[in-house]
């Protein structure tokens, strides 16, 4: 009976199984990386401020320079008192952290982390959801994360939290417009809204030697995208949403793991922004001059490589680029001071938005002229 069922639905079962494996592996990698990123944030800030940073948490006297701090933080979050304000909307108060976390996690389904691998003669695409419109889905889901901020502030029934939430919603809605518009130029150039197709298109060479990455076609869009993405991520210099010590944020009534979920979502967003910047502007998993069969250098020499080696190199390149951008975002956070709220809004609507529109116009004009 089971064999019969398998016979009848083998293709869909195989597809579902492969997808489940991909989801599990990717989620675990991302969760692990997020935990390390919380440590990296503290270590990078310590380095930049000439401190040592966290180095005390130890197991049997082995501290490994603070490697156990994420674990200790996690345990601390779980066992702290879970406080819910008496007048809060209990259900929505509980749901808010999920609203912040789930859309962000769902977004990873659309990001291609490699080309494909052959497993037992079965072509396994290294992307969870292969959709022709994945870029639009990325924008759609990132818009849903706003509800986490709003619900967190509203359900606490605290005026300061509500004000923080309003600030956050205004900021995120405004910068989302810019975020969407910066990507239009890329869609025009590559002629697709599928992230995997976009990465494949970036494998072409410019002038015969330069890798055809998005950043070489759309340098202005890259700067705009990174700015808007940091603002969307609510990190310094745009961290008015939380402003840890001075201005109060939407999650002021949250404690223990509920607060941890908000914080975790923010760190996961760092990885997401890094992955998106990599995918859209830095060739995703593309390694310069590496093709299906191996390296073909512009000066004519070749280096044939095994299929699995090529796949590993490509996925490794994607991971390396992601780690680089994550580090870059941490450095940005500890370098720049915070904007004032009116400056934040003026920057979005008076500088970034016109520039993004101008970018689309220029891209369109150049594309038409080249045709």
């Amino acid at each position, binding site marked *: 009976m089971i064999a019969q069922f398998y016979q009848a639905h083998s293709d869909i079962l195989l597809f579902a199984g492969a997808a489940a494996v991909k989801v599990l592996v990717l989620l675990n990698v991302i969760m692990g990386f997020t935990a390390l990123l919380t440590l990296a944030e503290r270590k990078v800030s310590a380095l930049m401020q000439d401190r040592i940073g966290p180095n005390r948490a130890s197991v049997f006297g082995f501290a490994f320079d603070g490697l156990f701090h994420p674990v200790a933080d996690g345990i601390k979050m779980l066992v702290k008192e879970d406080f819910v304000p008496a007048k809060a*909307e209990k259900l*929505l108060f509980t749901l808010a952290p999920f609203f912040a976390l789930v859309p962000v996690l769902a977004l990873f389904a659309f990001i291609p982390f490699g080309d494909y691998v052959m497993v037992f003669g079965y072509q396994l695409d290294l992307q969870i959801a292969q*959709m*022709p*419109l994945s870029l*639009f*889905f990325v*924008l*759609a*889901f990132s*818009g*849903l994360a*706003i*509800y986490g901020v*709003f*619900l967190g502030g*509203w359900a606490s029934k605290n005026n300061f939290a*509500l004000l923080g939430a*309003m600030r956050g*919603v*205004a900021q995120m*809605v405004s910068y*989302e417009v810019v975020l*969407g518009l910066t990507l239009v130029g890329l869609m025009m150039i590559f002629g697709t809204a599928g992230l995997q197709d976009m990465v494949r298109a970036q494998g072409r060479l410019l002038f015969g030697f330069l890798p055809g990455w998005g950043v070489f076609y759309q340098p202005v869009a890259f700067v705009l995208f990174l700015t808007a993405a940091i603002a969307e991520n609510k990190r310094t210099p745009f961290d008015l949403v939380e402003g840890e010590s001075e201005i109060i944020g939407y999650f002021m009534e949250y404690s223990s793991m509920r607060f941890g979920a908000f914080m975790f979502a923010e760190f996961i967003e760092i990885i997401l922004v890094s992955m998106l910047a990599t995918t859209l502007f830095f060739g995703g998993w593309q390694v310069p001059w590496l093709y299906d069969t191996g390296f073909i250098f512009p000066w004519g020499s070749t280096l044939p490589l095994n299929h699995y080696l090529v796949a590993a190199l490509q996925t490794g390149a994607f991971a390396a680029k992601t780690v680089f951008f994550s580090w870059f975002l941490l450095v940005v956070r500890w370098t720049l001071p915070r904007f004032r709220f009116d400056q934040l809004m003026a920057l979005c609507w008076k500088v970034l938005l016109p520039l993004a529109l101008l970018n689309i116009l220029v891209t369109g004009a150049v594309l038409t002229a080249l045709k």
Partner: protein
Amino acid sequence: MIQAAVWFFGAVAAMATLLMIFQRNLVKSALLMLAALLATAALYLALSAQMLAVLQIILYAGAIMILFVVALTVMPCALRDRASRSVFLKVLGLAAAAVILTELLNVSGALKGFLRPVDFSETGTLPLARELFGRFAFQFELLSLVIITAIVAATALALHRRRA
């Protein structure tokens, strides 16, 4: 499989809409409307209308609902809103609801005869764009006038309140 998904998300959307209507708290009712919109997006996705699903989420769930929610929260009068005592208004509301319901049923009856089950197919984004920016370009651009009117009105209202 598709049939089951359609039924499931359709039921969720209908349920959320009903709950939204019978919810007293305005913000909660807005959130239930969000649930209904998301369920509708899932419905489109199950019918492999990806573009429609994405637009549903970006425009309705992501932008318009956020504006609703913000407007509801920052307007003190919205929070103080009490149900009207007047019987006349209630009767008027019920009558309007009855008219809309009959009209909707009429239209859906006409649609039923018109629709046939179509095989699994991708959404034609390109043909849609050709129509919108080709044959209907003028009407499409006219539509933007409506939005500009709304923006001007909103700005005027905001400025008026600041001066007061």
